[in-house]
Structure formats: C-alpha cells, structure tokens
C-alpha cells in the first residue's frame, strides 16, 4: 500500500477507536502514523500533521487519565441507590448490604442504623456498620463506634461479643495494638429453659474439639428461601451442638425444617476461620414462656466439616 494511504488508514482507525472510547488503541495508531510521518523527508504539511497528531494524543491522554482516576464508587442519586436496594436485596438487611457492596456507604450506614432497633438484624447490621466505617473512614472509627455501643445498652452481651469477635481480627490484621473490651457473657444462655414444656438440650457425644462457632449460614433447599443462604447467630454452643434462636417473625424461614433433616450446605463462621460442612436438625421447639416467648429454638448438630 502507498505510504500516504497507510498513514490515512492509521489516522482513520485512530479516529474510529477514539470515538469508540478505545483510547489506548487510538493512541497506538496515532503514534504509528506519527512514526511513519517522521520517516518521510519530503512531506507537504509535515509539521502541521505532526502537530495535529500530537494534539490528538494529548487529548487522549487527558481522557484516559480521567477515566482511570475517576472514583470507582461515586455516591449515586437517591434514585440510583433505591434501584440498587430493590434489585439486589430481598429483605431490609440485604438491601442495606447491597448499598455497601456498591460503595454507597453513607446511605448504607443510615439504613443499617435503622435496623439496629430490630433484634433479628441487630448483630448483622452492627457488623456491616463496622465494614462501612472501615471503608469510608478508618478502623479507628469502627473501634470508636464499638466502644460507644459497648457503653450503651443497645446490644446484649452475646450480641456485643459477636461484634467483638468480628472486629478484633480486623484490628489485629491492621497492626493496631488495641484489645476491644469484651462483654461479660452470663453462664446461662439467654433462652433459659422455662419451668415446663421448655427447651431440652441433647447431651453431646464425646467428640473432637469444635471451634467456637459464632454463626452459621444455612442454604435452604426448599420453600421461599430455596437456593438462598441465610445466616443465623449461634446463641449457645456445647461441643458440636449449636443452639440458634429464631425470631417468631422469621418462623417462615424454618417452617420446612424438621427434626432429623440433613443440611448439606452449611457455612460455619468462627472468629478465626470460616468452613463448610453439613449439619443435622436435632431439635426444633417453640419457646412457650419468658422474654423469648413465641420465638423458636433450633438445635443444629455439626455433622461434618
């Protein structure tokens, strides 16, 4: 091909790539055209051509920088945030977490703080507030929040411990030499066995040591939650037997579960590790009296990990 046609073709390609937003490719073609022009001794308007190409390359570099250094998660309008909530979350907690996952931390914190009033979501909302604070500010900010909650009465001792065991490893990993204050956990479980028709814990069989498990995620294979993983806090653990308290408002979640059911896809969360395994429903009882009346106690036996 005639050299002038080659140059024309390169410039034409460069211009197309530029309009397509392919700035790197456009720059390469402009550079190739420029190199070709440089090699030609006698070319009409050589200097003007080179100046024009140089100008184009400069514009491309500015655009490239703008694209590459732009914020990865700018704050969206309320409309955009509402869309994220509706498309990526089923319940209020998931909606708030979706906002955080899309970098909308300020709004996520507002939504999560509203969920602190709800006993069902309180711990997870607390943990996710910690995540957001770390993302937008610092671990120190998260620690300050923890200390504020610790000196208040919003969280029970067990709930506070759950947040502490979540946050402490993060603090340690960041090299911050700070031990979070630990709540006094009463020896008796909160769901105390009422006088009659109450909870009975099966005596655990002798078994190998099981890590302290703070929560478990159960993937439901039937019902409204089919295919979804729902995380439950462990209220009490005795060896491989875990007791979960399920709020009455969530009875629908466990309606399909029966004693003896094998759970094949269980995620176990402990302060130092997360692992998968199976479990078996050992007991399912409605709490008939006391502060948790109407709630359910679900006993889950760790079958394998």
């Amino acid at each position, binding site marked *: 091909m005639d050299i002038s046609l080659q140059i024309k*073709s390169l410039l*034409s*390609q460069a211009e*197309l*790539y530029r309009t*397509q*937003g*392919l700035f790197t*490719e456009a720059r*390469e073609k402009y550079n190739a055209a420029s190199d070709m022009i440089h090699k030609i001794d006698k070319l009409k308007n050589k200097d003007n051509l080179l100046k024009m190409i140089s100008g184009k390359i400069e514009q491309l570099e500015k*655009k490239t920088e*703008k*694209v*590459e250094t*732009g914020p*990865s998660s*700018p704050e*969206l309008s309320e409309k*955009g945030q509402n*869309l*994220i909530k509706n*498309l*990526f979350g089923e319940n209020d907690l998931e909606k708030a977490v979706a906002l955080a*996952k*899309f970098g909308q931390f300020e709004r996520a914190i507002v939504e999560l703080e509203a969920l602190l009033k709800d006993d069902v979501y309180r711990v997870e909302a607390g943990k996710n507030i910690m995540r957001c604070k770390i993302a937008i500010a610092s671990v120190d900010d998260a620690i300050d929040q923890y200390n504020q909650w610790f000196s208040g009465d919003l969280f029970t001792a067990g709930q506070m411990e759950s947040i502490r065991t979540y946050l402490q490893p993060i603090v340690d990993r960041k090299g911050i030499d700070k031990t979070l204050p630990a709540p006094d956990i009463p020896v008796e479980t909160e769901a105390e066995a009422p006088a009659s028709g109450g909870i009975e814990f099966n005596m655990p069989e002798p078994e190998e040591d099981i890590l302290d498990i703070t929560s478990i995620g159960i993937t439901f294979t039937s019902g409204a939650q089919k*295919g979804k993983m729902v995380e439950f806090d462990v209220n009490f653990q005795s060896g491989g037997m875990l007791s979960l308290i399920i709020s009455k408002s969530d009875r629908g979640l466990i309606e399909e579960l029966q004693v003896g059911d094998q759970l094949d896809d269980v995620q176990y969360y402990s302060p130092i590790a997360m692992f998968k395994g199976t479990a078996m429903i050992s007991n399912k009882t409605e709490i008939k009296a006391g502060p948790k009346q109407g709630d359910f106690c679900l006993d889950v036996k760790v079958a394998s990990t």
Partner: protein
Amino acid sequence: MAIFNLKKREIECKVVYYGPGRCGKTTNLEYIFKSYKKQVTGEMVSINTEGDRTLFFDFLPMGLGKIKGCDVRVQLYTVPGQVKYSSTRKLVLRGVDGIVFVADSLEVRREKNMISLKDLQSNLKEYGKSIFKVPLIIQYNKRDLADEGIPLMSVEQMERDLNRQLKVPSFPGSAVKGTGVGVALKACLMETLKSLQREFKWAK
C-alpha cells in the same frame, strides 16, 4: 436465580450482557429498549460515568407474556466492562439465569474478548456455576465496521478464539444498527427458559 411462583404461575429470570469494555453491551440494551416497546415493562436505567461508560449496570425489565401457561418476566442487565470494576461485575452476575456474551469484532480487541470470557468463567465458578452449563449465547458485535475499512476479525477466527470448547449459539451483529440484537436475545431467552423448564418443570 429465577423466581418461580407456582401458585401464580409466574417466572422472573435474569439475563446479563457480559463482555469487555466498549464492546456494545449497553448499546444492545438501548436498541432493545427502543425497538421492543411492547415487551418492555419499565424504563431502562443506566448507572454510568460522564463518559457514558457503564459504572455499575444497566437495567431493563421485560415481559414476555404467557409461555407454556406461565407469565414470564425477564430482567436484562449489563455489567461494566472496565477492568477496575471487576467486583461490580461479580455482584451483578449473581443469580444470573442466562448470558449474552458480547464480543468485540475489532482486531485490536481480540485479547480483551478472551480475557473477558475467562473473567466470566471465573465469576460463574465463584457462584458454583459452570460456563459450560449456564445458558450462554455469543454475539459478534460491530460487524458493520467492515464497511469502513477497519480491521475486523473474521467470524471464523472469533469462533476459534471464543467458541471452540463452548460450542454455544453465536450470532454476528451490529448493536448500533440493530442487526443481530433481537435474534441473540431471543436465542438466549429460549435457552434460559429451556433450562428453567428442566429445573422447575413449570410447563402445563
């Protein structure tokens, strides 16, 4: 993941347009929004940057009417193609039922196509899905640029690069002109619904 309401006989499924940056995913959805007004059940929403690059996703809801006794609704999404939005791509891909992989026919984008397809495979794997099993269609986009003397890969070459192992239905197209957009979407919906029928056995 598709939502199937047995009582109401309604199915809602999710189709994601995937591909490298600037390949034409958003342009596909824009064409569908403009041309399939009867089936579109809401506004197309695009969350993008000033430069019109998709930042988080595009979203377009559609209703396909009654199919085998079930009311079928589909949500179309695109993912951001830029490398730095990898975590967002993963988020948007969650619960996907069918995929249209939009490949860029420009020769200079050959490697980006392959990197993007590998990225898709990796993200699907994290959700426990196999790229060999999920309903997948490939669109070879920007075929119109051949008329402008821009170096394009041949469809045969793109088939070798991207579809040699997958062997999924593929369609040449030009999203900006609208060719191949409808046929790719229909093919993807057919594959997706076939897959959901196997899973839920919802046909009357």
